[in-house]
C-alpha cells in the first residue's frame, strides 16, 4: 500500500508524540506542590472546610452544656459560582470531622429536599407487611429531630485586572443555626483569591 497523504500522517504522528510527552501521574495529596488553578480544586475545599471546623470547635458552638451530642441537619448550601460544584465536597468534610469530634451527630432523615437517606422512612412501610417480623421493624417515635442546621453559600466574583490578567474571588460562607430559636450560633467565612491569565478559565 502506498501512503500518499503525508501531511495527515505527519499530523497524526505529531499528536501521538505530544500526548506521549505528558504522562498521567497521581497527585500526592499529602504533599501537593503543584501550581494553583483558576477554578476551585480539592485544596481550596480542604482549606475552607478545615477553617470552618477549627472555628466551630474552638468557638464552643457545637458543645452541648450537658456533654451530650447535638443533632445536626444539613440545610441548603448554594453554589453561586460559575463552576459546576457538588457542595458535598465542602460539607462532607465538615460532617465527618464534627461526627469524629464526638460533639455532633448528623441526621440523614431530615434535610431541605426531603430525607438524604430515604431508607429510614421507606423501611417504616414494612409495618404493613406480614412478611416481616414486626419486632424488627423501626418503631414509631424513634427518630431524633435536629437541634442545629448548617447552611451556606459559595460565591464567585470575577474581576478583570487588565487585558491579560483576571482575578477570581471565592467566598465560602457558612452558618450554624439553632433550630429551636432560629438564631445563628456560629458563622464562618473563608475567602480564596486567585490571579492569573485571562486565558485560564474559572468556570
Amino acid at each position: 500500500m502506498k501512503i500518499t497523504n503525508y501531511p495527515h500522517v505527519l499530523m497524526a504522528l505529531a499528536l501521538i508524540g505530544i500526548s506521549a510527552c505528558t504522562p498521567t501521574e497521581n497527585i500526592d495529596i499529602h504533599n501537593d506542590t503543584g501550581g494553583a488553578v483558576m477554578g476551585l480544586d480539592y485544596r481550596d475545599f480542604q482549606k475552607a472546610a478545615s477553617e470552618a471546623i477549627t472555628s466551630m470547635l474552638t468557638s464552643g458552638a457545637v458543645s452541648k452544656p450537658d456533654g451530650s451530642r447535638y443533632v445536626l441537619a444539613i440545610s441548603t448550601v448554594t453554589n453561586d459560582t460559575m463552576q459546576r460544584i457538588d457542595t458535598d465536597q465542602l460539607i462532607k468534610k465538615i460532617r465527618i470531622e464534627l461526627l469524629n469530634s464526638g460533639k455532633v451527630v448528623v441526621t440523614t432523615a431530615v434535610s431541605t429536599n426531603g430525607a438524604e437517606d430515604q431508607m429510614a422512612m421507606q423501611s417504616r412501610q414494612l409495618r404493613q407487611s406480614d412478611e416481616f417480623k414486626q419486632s424488627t421493624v423501626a418503631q414509631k417515635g424513634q427518630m431524633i429531630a435536629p437541634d442545629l442546621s448548617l447552611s451556606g453559600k459559595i460565591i464567585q466574583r470575577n474581576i478583570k485586572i487588565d487585558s491579560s490578567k483576571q482575578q477570581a474571588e471565592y467566598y465560602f460562607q457558612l452558618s450554624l443555626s439553632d433550630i429551636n430559636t432560629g438564631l445563628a450560633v456560629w458563622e464562618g467565612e473563608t475567602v480564596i483569591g486567585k490571579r492569573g491569565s485571562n486565558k485560564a478559565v474559572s468556570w
Partner: protein
Amino acid sequence: MKFIKLFNLAVLATLLNACALINTAPSYAPSATDARIQVLKSFWGTNIRITDVDTIINSSGLMVTQITGVNQDSDYLKLEYHAEWFDREGMVIPSKMTHWVQFPAFEETEFRLKVVAPKRSAADFKILIREVND
C-alpha cells in the same frame, strides 16, 4: 601511574566524606521550647524560630495549642503547618484537619498559630512547620 592511583583514591575519599556529611545533617530543627514542634529546613536553612508553645483544654474539653514564633527573615514568608494528634496510647487520631495549612509570617516579626484537637481523646500532638515553595 602510582600518582594517578593515589589521586583517584583521594578524590573518592573526598566524595565519600562529603556524602557522609550531607547524610548526617538533620533536615529539621527541633524547637528549642518544645520537641513536639519541628521546623523543616529548606536547602538554605530556615529563618523561623519557635519561641513559645501554650497548650490549654478549652471549654469543649478539646486541647488547643498556640505556637508563637519569629520570622527572622527580612522578607515576608508564607509558611504552612501539618498537625497530627495522638491519644493517650500514642495512636494517631485520623482527622480531616491533618494536612498542610498555610499561614503568614511577616518580616522580622512574631507570628502565632492556633491548632485545635479533633476530639477530646487527643492527648499529644506533633506539628511540622515549613516554608511554602510556590
